[in-house]
């Protein structure tokens, strides 16, 4: 099972949107896929119309008192399951730290939980809250690939560098870090410029760009992945391009 995290320390950059759409596309292409919503706000959970309720909460799940499988929910889409988030996830950092005291390494606890799913899925997507926390550290350790949505701003490159540097300090396996542009607007000169130059200057930043489009924003109203209600059109095509990047990096 390959693990793909959608991560950026910044909020509102398109992490959840990317995770949901890519998980949908992966499943539609026949990969047995699970999406784990790790954000206590439960945006991905909401988009799949699943109630934000996890029996036993983060504590039981992270502590190993309840098997991960028991929390799985089938989505409305063939081959795609969801591990929903609920509000107890706001304490996940504490739960992870506690699992450290019980012998496991705090930064790797999530990997152990994902291993329980490895037999049933080909791909796991992790949707993460915007933070630098024990949860995000766990996510980065568990991932084979970290997708980083970048809104083209002057500071964006620095944020990306910081993440790449942090991952660079990992001992042993390091995930691929793959930046892509999010919510881009071709009418903005800065957007055009950064999209043209950054991929050349930074290893790991691709020129794949998800334009800012109303049809993408509508996901929250439709409560469905974008390709499910707008299967053709530039927005879905952009996510399909991003999926192609993922396929190439992970050699799927």
């Amino acid at each position, binding site marked *: 099972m390959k693990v793909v995290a959608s991560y950026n320390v910044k909020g509102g950059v398109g992490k959840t949107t990317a995770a949901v759409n890519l998980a949908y596309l992966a499943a539609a292409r026949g990969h047995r896929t699970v999406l784990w919503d790790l954000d206590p706000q439960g945006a991905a959970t909401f988009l*799949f119309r699943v109630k934000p309720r996890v029996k036993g909460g983060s504590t039981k799940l992270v502590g190993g008192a309840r098997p991960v499988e028991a929390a799985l*929910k089938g989505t*409305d889409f063939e081959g795609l399951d969801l591990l929903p988030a609920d509000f107890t996830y706001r304490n996940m950092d504490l739960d992870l730290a506690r699992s450290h005291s019980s012998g496991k390494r705090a930064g790797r606890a999530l990997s152990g939980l994902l291993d329980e799913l490895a037999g049933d899925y080909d791909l796991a997507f992790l949707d993460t809250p915007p933070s630098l926390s024990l949860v995000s550290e766990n996510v980065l350790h568990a991932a084979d690939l970290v997708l980083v949505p970048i809104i083209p701003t002057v500071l964006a490159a620095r944020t990306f560098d910081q993440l790449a540097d942090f991952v660079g300090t990992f001992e042993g396996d390091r995930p691929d870090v793959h930046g892509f542009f999010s919510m881009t607007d071709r009418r903005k000169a800065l957007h055009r410029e950064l999209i043209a130059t950054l991929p050349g200057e930074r290893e790991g930043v691709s020129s794949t760009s998800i334009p800012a489009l109303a049809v993408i924003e509508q996901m929250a109203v439709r409560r469905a992945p974008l390709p499910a209600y707008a299967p053709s059109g530039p927005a879905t095509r952009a996510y399909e391009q991003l999926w192609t990047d993922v396929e190439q990096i992970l050699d799927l």
Partner: protein
Amino acid sequence: MLAALAPAKADRYELAVGPRRTRTVTYLDTVDWRLHAKGIVLSHERASGPGTLTVDGRGEENSTRLTESPQWPARVEQLPEGEVRDGVAAAMWVRAVAPVVRARVVSREVAVLDDERKTVVRLDWVELTGTEPSATRPLVRVTLRPVLGYGGAAKRVRKALEACGDFAEIEDGGAYATLLEAEGIAPEESAPPAISADMPADVAVATALHGFAGVIAVNVDGVLDDIDTEFLHDLRVAVRRTRSLLKLAGDVLPPELVRRYGSGFKWLGDATTPTRDLDVYLLEFDTLAAGLVAGEPGDLAPFGELLASEREKARRALARTLRSQRFTRLIEGWQAGLADVLERDWSEQDGRLTAEALAAERVRGMVAKVIKRAKAITPDSPAEDVHRLRKRCKELRYLLEVVKPVCDATAHRAVIKDLKKVQDVLGAFQDGEVQSHSLRDYAERLQSSGRPPAATLLAMGELSASFVTMQRQARHDLTGALRKFLGPATHERIEDLLP
């Protein structure tokens, strides 16, 4: 439909009904249920376009999308090449498949939604209505597909549905089994009417003959439509059985009946011979061609074409016979005459010969004849004597098949087994001779019809030589086989089998 499923809401859910999909499905088999016997289901489904052909052989399923509408009945070579055809070829053998039942299938997927409009259970609604051979009432099956993590909802919906109706009218065994039952079709060959030991002899003989007449009648259409070669084969065997039984036990029937119709079966049998001989030739043609040592299989192609056109001619002549008044009068009059014998009151016949006694008497007589002839065969006996023995053996075999119900089963099986071995050797002898003669004849005809390639004539020469070798081998094997299978031991076994 929605009304029927309303209980699935279980007071808290909504239903989202998917689009209605309609298709027709045709289930196919050979007349003698060969696919069924092997546990194979062959079906043709279409919604629009030519549809798909699917074979399900004990759980292993293969489908082919068709590029043109299929024509039924179809022999294996008329099915599209591929996995489906490979999956039915052995079971179909030389027989054609034809529709057994046809149905209209209406299906719908229904999603059971919670208050977030999230699907928590899926229901597959399938409605199957038999349309052929007769219209059935709609048969419904609702299959509940739980969604991961919503076990509670699945339980609730199942309970609510079960409380208010039968949603499993289509059996687990599948739509085909359900349809067959609804149509009242039993997937097995109708057994020939059996004789029993205490039947009066004439009733027993008439019963067997009436069965053969039924076989003749039932195969006529298949021969006329040239569906496959087995229709003619079965018809012909029934004619031969009729003739043998008339010869061996016809004397117990009203003499007038036998006098009137008996000779008709020789006429009918003779009329079937040319087509059947050519059928056999053509069925074996590829094997024969592949067995050439000096020649190439393709060398025989002009000969194959000659055979095919001869067969077409022969078949047309046969069709004329089977459509003739003489044929109709023969079969109908014969069946009516036999029915008269069958309908006579048994009780009046007290003290007369029983089937059992007749069987014992005739089998003993026939066995004595066969063994006498077999003993007389030496390595130098003329071919004529061998052919006569072959005919007697065949008659004995038919007789034994008729009297089987009054015989000891184990002994019967053993005797038939021995007899079969002898018949195989005799058959090889006969085939070798007939084939090598007819090849000569065909070669001359090819020659006079044009200028056949030399390679063709050479290949035919090679075939002819192999037939002669086969005949010699059979002649060589014969004396041993006769001693072994028609010796004193066999005589004893035949005594065991008789009452």
